[in-house]
């Protein structure tokens, strides 16, 4: 298990907290929470040694969607593709008006 921490200078505020995903094998859960501070991403991952990959996946995500949020990720060995999928799924939840 490894804990990772990232910061981003993004400024699009989000309106509500959202949660998607499950900490299942090859999967992860993602929580977005509104914040007025710097965007922070805290990751707990079961696969050690992938800090650079995480940095790249997150950079690509925030380049495209510069949301300002406090993000928590619990990951159980998901691939970068799955990570990206869950992050965009959380964005969809933000738009959901239910």
């Amino acid at each position, binding site marked *: 298990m490894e804990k990772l921490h990232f910061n981003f200078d993004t400024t699009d505020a989000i309106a509500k907290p959202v949660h998607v995903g499950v*900490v299942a094998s090859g999967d992860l859960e993602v929580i977005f*929470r509104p914040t007025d501070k710097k965007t922070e991403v805290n990751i707990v991952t079961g696969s050690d040694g992938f800090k650079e990959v995480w940095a790249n996946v997150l950079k690509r995500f925030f380049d495209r969607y510069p949301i300002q949020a406090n993000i928590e990720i*619990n990951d159980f060995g998901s691939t970068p593709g799955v990570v990206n999928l869950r992050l965009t799924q959380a964005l969809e939840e933000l738009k959901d008006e239910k």
Partner: protein
Amino acid sequence: MKNSFVELHARERALSLLDAGTSKEMVGPLDDMISPHLEPQNIVPESDDGIVLMKGKIDGNNVLVVSIEGKFQGGGIGEVSGAKIVAALEKALEDNKNGKTIYPIIILDTGGVRLQEANYGLLSISEIQNAVIALKKYVPVIGLVPGRVGSFGGMSITASILSYLIATNKARIALNGPEVIEQEAGVREFDSSDKDLIWNTLGTKQRLATGLVDEVVDDTVDNIKNSIVNEIKTKKDAHRTENVDFYLSLLDKLDLSKKLDIETYNKLYKSVEVTKHDIPEAVAGSKEGTKSRGRAWFEKMTGIKNATSPVSTVLHAQKDGKEYVAIVPDADNDFPRVRNGEVGLQEGFAVASVINKVVAEDKDKDVKRPIILIVDVPSQAYGYQEELIGIHVALGSSAAAYAKARQAGHPVIDFIPGDAVSGGFLAHGLQSNRMIALDDDSITIQAMSKASAARITQRTIAELEEATKHVPAMAYDIDNYEKLGALYKLVKGIGSWEATDENVAKINQIIDGAIDGLNGDRTLHFRYETPIAKESGRKATLKVRKLVDEQW
């Protein structure tokens, strides 16, 4: 698969059952109530600790859905996940008591105790069982076993206690998983690589044929919802843990000289002629019984030398107005898997028979007889025929009997001079609300042997031992157990084997003190209320209980 229920995650499962727009999740992922015990062991936690609690309506009826996430840590029950279930069931009980009907539905997708929080898992599961027994006086408690994980371990004991069990054909139900049986009893006992044998034995088709589930439906959301709606309407109750005479009669007819196969068992199951079974009090015998700490203390406490009973492993007797019960080893037992004092089929059903009788005899009395459990159980029995017949029902029967006795007003007190392990402890010990243990380092108190726990959690024994240093609930000794706060008293200066007259007098005094201090307490809340529990042992439990109470 279209409209599959099994393929949904726990939260989606709960939502799929509830009428649209009626759901309300409690202590959800945004409440930050994660397990404090996983990260110290380098295990990734989940924000809801694998349990979804949702209130809502099904076909207009108020329900509480408890949905276990099988994909997170195998649906194992730890401190937080267990406390979430217990707290929600107790709120449902409160509502029902106040005339506000709410039906609890438990979706079981679970391996049982979360081995990484072992002793918390056992405590929690006994507390869940206690709440289910209490709830059943008001409403049916409905169980659903959709599969992939199915239902195993202590949560199968819980499943046996539920009013009505619905399953799909993608599920298996058992006490011990085949891998654990292979680890404990050898590959000839149960070959865990033989998938056909596993599914034919533990699959729900076989379970339906022998009364271990009540209904098997095809895997669609609609089918499952229909079955639940139907059960809410008809309120059927399988009374699965009340068939003690049936099972004791069945066991009488079992041919123990050869290995039981499915076809033989199914024939036997259908041909049982039920006769009344009374397990008489132990009497003095001429031959010494197989030595054990439990036997030594039982004989001293009751004054019965070389105690014997027609069920050689279950000793009980009345002394000074108290009922003493012990499960003991018998090296010559016809059941090979209980020769070391394990709790097997006969033990579970016989203890249930004893306790049910005590409760029936005292039904109209103002003061109920105290029941003293002498606990020295190295584990539940690991065996093929045990699983085929349904050992989880045997253990559920005795757990239910003890819970009912306590809820009826009997003081149920543990005296622990020996081991208190896993399903054995759930069946004989964990329904007590005052536990007294000897401070002796020979006592093992755990959910699984080190070898099996290491195999199942895919760690080495060295890694497992390292983890026990950080998480007291993972440890195997009584001193670490004390740190959880569940004990009424840890008695220093008396060794496990030192069952002398003087020591018996000391223990009896402590037992009497425990009984006097009950003040009518029929719950298991004492475990949360000791100074150690409040300070550290059950801190997360208490936080969960507060949150559920606020959000209910």
